[in-house]
C-alpha cells in the first residue's frame, strides 16, 4: 500500500506505518480460542510538528494502534518508520533512547497520576529511566519549574499532591510529564474527554501553544469530531481495525468519501442545529464483533449504500467521485464513494 506516501514537495514525515496487523488470541466459551483482529492492515502518517486526528468508535483499534506506536505491542505484520528508522529493530541503549521520543498523555487525569507523589516527583519520574539526560542537582528543580511554567502551573504547585488539583490542572501535570523527555511525538488518547467543557478549551489551547513553541507532533485520538476538527491537520478514520478514510481534516470532515465518515459526522450532535432542523442519517446497528468481521467491506452491514460487491471484494481506494484524481491525498476505501452527485447505490 503506497497511499500514505506524501506529495514529494513536503518534508519527510516523522512517522509512517504501513500495513500494520495485530491480532490477539482470546478465550471463547465452548468453541475454544478465537482471534480478535484489532488492526487489519493499517497505514498511517504523522507529519513533523503537526497533528494527526484519529477518529473511530470503541473497538475500532485506536488504542491498539497507539500501543504499537509506543512499542508496547509488536505488530504481527507491517512496518513502522520513525524518523527514517524502524524502532522495532532497536535493542538495548538505542531502544531506550528511542523511547523518550514518543510519549503519551492519558484520558483520565485522576487515574494516570500517582496519588502518593507530588507534582514535581510525577514530572521528574521519567528521568529515573533516562538517567543519561536527567538534569542533575539544582538543574533538576529548575527544569521541573520550567515544565510547570510551560503548562501553566505555578512554581508553588511543585510540592502539592494530585488530590489538591482540579481535573484540568492534573491533565497539565500529565502533559508536563510527557514533555519531560523532550519527545518528538505525543500520543494523546482522548486527552480532554474526561474534563469539563469550560476546562477542555484551556487544555486544547495549551496543547496548541506547546506545538507552536516546541514543534512537537501529536497523534490525537478522540471521538469528539468538533475537537478533532479544531486541533487536527489531518484525520484518519478507523472502523473495525482498518483506516477507511484519511486526508486533510477539513476535507475529510466536510467532504467525506466514505459513508461511515459521513455517518459519524452526521451523528455528532451540533450546536448549529437547534430545534427540529434534524438532518440526521442515523446509522442502524452497532459495530460487528472484531472476532468475526464481515467479508469484503467491514462497514457493509451498517452501510446505507451497500450492494453485493461490498460483500465480495475488498473496497478499493477512492477519491470523492467527481473530484479530479491525484490531487491531494484524501482517500476513502469504498466501492460506492460519496460525491457531489451521489452515485447510484
Amino acid at each position, binding site marked *: 500500500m503506497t497511499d500514505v506516501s506524501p506529495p514529494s514537495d513536503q518534508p519527510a514525515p516523522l512517522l509512517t506505518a504501513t500495513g500494520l496487523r495485530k491480532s490477539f488470541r482470546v478465550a471463547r466459551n465452548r468453541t475454544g480460542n478465537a482471534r480478535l483482529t484489532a488492526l487489519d492492515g493499517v497505514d498511517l502518517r504523522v507529519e513533523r510538528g503537526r497533528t494527526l486526528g484519529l477518529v473511530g*468508535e*470503541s473497538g475500532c483499534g485506536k488504542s491498539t494502534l497507539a500501543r504499537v506506536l509506543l512499542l508496547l505491542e509488536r505488530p504481527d505484520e507491517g512496518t513502522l518508520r520513525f524518523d527514517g528508522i524502524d524502532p522495532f529493530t532497536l535493542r538495548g541503549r538505542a531502544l531506550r533512547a528511542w523511547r523518550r521520543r514518543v510519549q503519551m498523555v492519558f484520558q483520565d487525569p485522576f487515574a494516570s497520576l500517582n496519588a502518593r507523589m507530588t507534582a514535581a516527583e510525577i514530572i521528574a519520574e521519567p528521568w529515573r529511566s533516562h538517567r543519561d539526560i536527567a538534569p542533575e542537582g539544582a538543574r533538576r528543580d529548575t527544569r521541573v519549574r520550567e515544565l510547570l511554567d510551560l503548562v501553566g502551573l505555578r512554581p508553588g504547585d511543585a510540592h502539592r499532591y494530585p488530590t489538591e488539583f*482540579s*481535573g*484540568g*490542572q492534573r491533565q497539565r501535570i500529565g502533559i508536563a510529564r510527557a514533555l519531560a523527555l523532550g519527545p518528538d511525538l505525543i500520543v494523546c488518547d482522548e486527552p480532554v474527554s474526561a474534563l*469539563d*467543557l*469550560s*476546562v*477542555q*478549551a*484551556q487544555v*486544547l*489551547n495549551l496543547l*496548541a*501553544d506547546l506545538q507552536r513553541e516546541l514543534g512537537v507532533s501529536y497523534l490525537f485520538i478522540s*471521538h*469528539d*469530531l*468538533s*475537537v478533532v*476538527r*479544531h*486541533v487536527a491537520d489531518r484525520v484518519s478514520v478507523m472502523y473495525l481495525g482498518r483506516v477507511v478514510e484519511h486526508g486533510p*481534516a*477539513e476535507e475529510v470532515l466536510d467532504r467525506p468519501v466514505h459513508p461511515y465518515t459521513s*455517518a*459519524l459526522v*452526521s*451523528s*455528532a*450532535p*451540533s*450546536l*448549529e*442545529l*437547534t*430545534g427540529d432542523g*434534524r438532518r*440526521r442519517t*442515523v*446509522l*442502524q446497528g*452497532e*459495530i460487528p464483533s472484531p472476532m468475526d468481521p464481515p467479508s469484503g467491506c467491514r462497514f457493509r452491514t451498517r452501510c446505507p449504500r451497500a450492494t453485493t460487491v461490498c460483500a465480495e471484494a475488498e473496497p478499493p481506494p477512492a477519491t470523492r467521485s467527481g473530484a479530479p484524481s491525484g490531487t491531494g491525498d484524501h482517500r476513502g476505501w469504498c466501492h460506492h464513494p460519496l460525491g457531489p452527485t451521489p452515485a447510484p447505490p
Partner: protein
Amino acid sequence: MTPTTAPPARQPEPGAPPPALRVEGLTVDLTTPTGELRAVDGVGFSVHKGRTLALLGESGCGKSMTAQAVVGLLDPVARVTGGTAHVNGTEVLGLSRSQRARLAGPVLSIVFQDALTAMNPVRTVGAQLAEPFRIHRGLSRRAARERAVELMDGVGIPEPRARARSYPHQFSGGMRQRLLIAMAVALEPDVLIADEPTTALDVTVQAQVMELLADLQARQGMALVLITHDLAVVAEHADEVAVMYAGHVVETGPVTEVFTHPRHPYTRGLLDSVPERAAKGRPLHAVPGSPPELGSIPTGCVFQSRCPLAADVCAAERPRPRPTGPSRAAACHRSEELASD
C-alpha cells in the same frame, strides 16, 4: 445562603395547563466528615407535557442530585432541606416511601447513565421488564412477559422474544440503554428524567438512543427532563434549558434564545469554549479556572471568581434570578451588559 424560593423561570399563561413537573427552591444538603455542604441551592425549573427541558451543567454542579431528589432516590448522605416539586400539581418531595413507590413508573420515571449497574445482573431482561406490569398493573406472569416482549420490540431490540431470556451482560451498551429506557417508559410516565442517557455510548449509537427517546416522547406525550453536560445535545433535543453552576440555576429560557443570546457570563463562556464555534488554528475562548469545591462556594455570586464581568456587587450579594426576556431569567447582577451583543 439565599432564600430557598427562587421565582419560577416562567409564569404560566392564564388558562394554560400546569406544568407536568415544577421544581421550586429545591435545596439538598450533604452530610460529610467535614460538616454540612449544600449541593443544590434553591433550584427551580418547570417542564410541560410533551416538552423537553435540559438541565445543563458540568460535573459536580448538582444536576444529577437535583434529579435524584425529585424522584426520591437520593444517596443516604444527602437530604432535601427545602423546596417543592409538583408533578401534575401534586407535591412529591414530602411523600412517604410507599406513596412514592406508587408514582414510580406510571407518573414519574428515570433513566440512568450506566445501564449495566442500573439493571439486576442475575435476572433475565424479560423478567425485569415484566416487573412493572406485574406490580402496578397486576398482570399475570404470562401477560406481563408478553408486554415485556412488546416493549423490547418497541425500543428496537431485534428478536425480542428470544432476547427476553438473555441477561443484561449479554447485550451491547447501546442495547442495554434501550432496555433501560424501555423499563422507564413501560407504564407511560407523565414525566421522564434521563440522566446523561447517552454519555457512555459511541456517537452513532448516541444518535440512535436520542432518536428513540424523541420517538417515545412523541408517542406518549411525556415531559422529558434531559440531564446533560453536552451543549450540542441540548441544542438538538431540548426546548428549554436550565443552566446549572455550583448548585444553582444561573440561567433559564428557550434553548434557541439562550444559546444565541446568553444572558449569564457562565452560559456565554460555555458556548464560547465549544471548538465547533472557533476558527481553526485560533485559540479557543476558555473560561479561566475551574468550578469551586462545594466547601468553598463564595458568598455573593457563585461564578464571580471566573467571571470577566465580576464587580464589587458580585462579591457582596448573591444574584437572584431576574427576568431577562419573555420566559427567560438569569441570576446575574450584570446580565444587562450581555444584552447589547
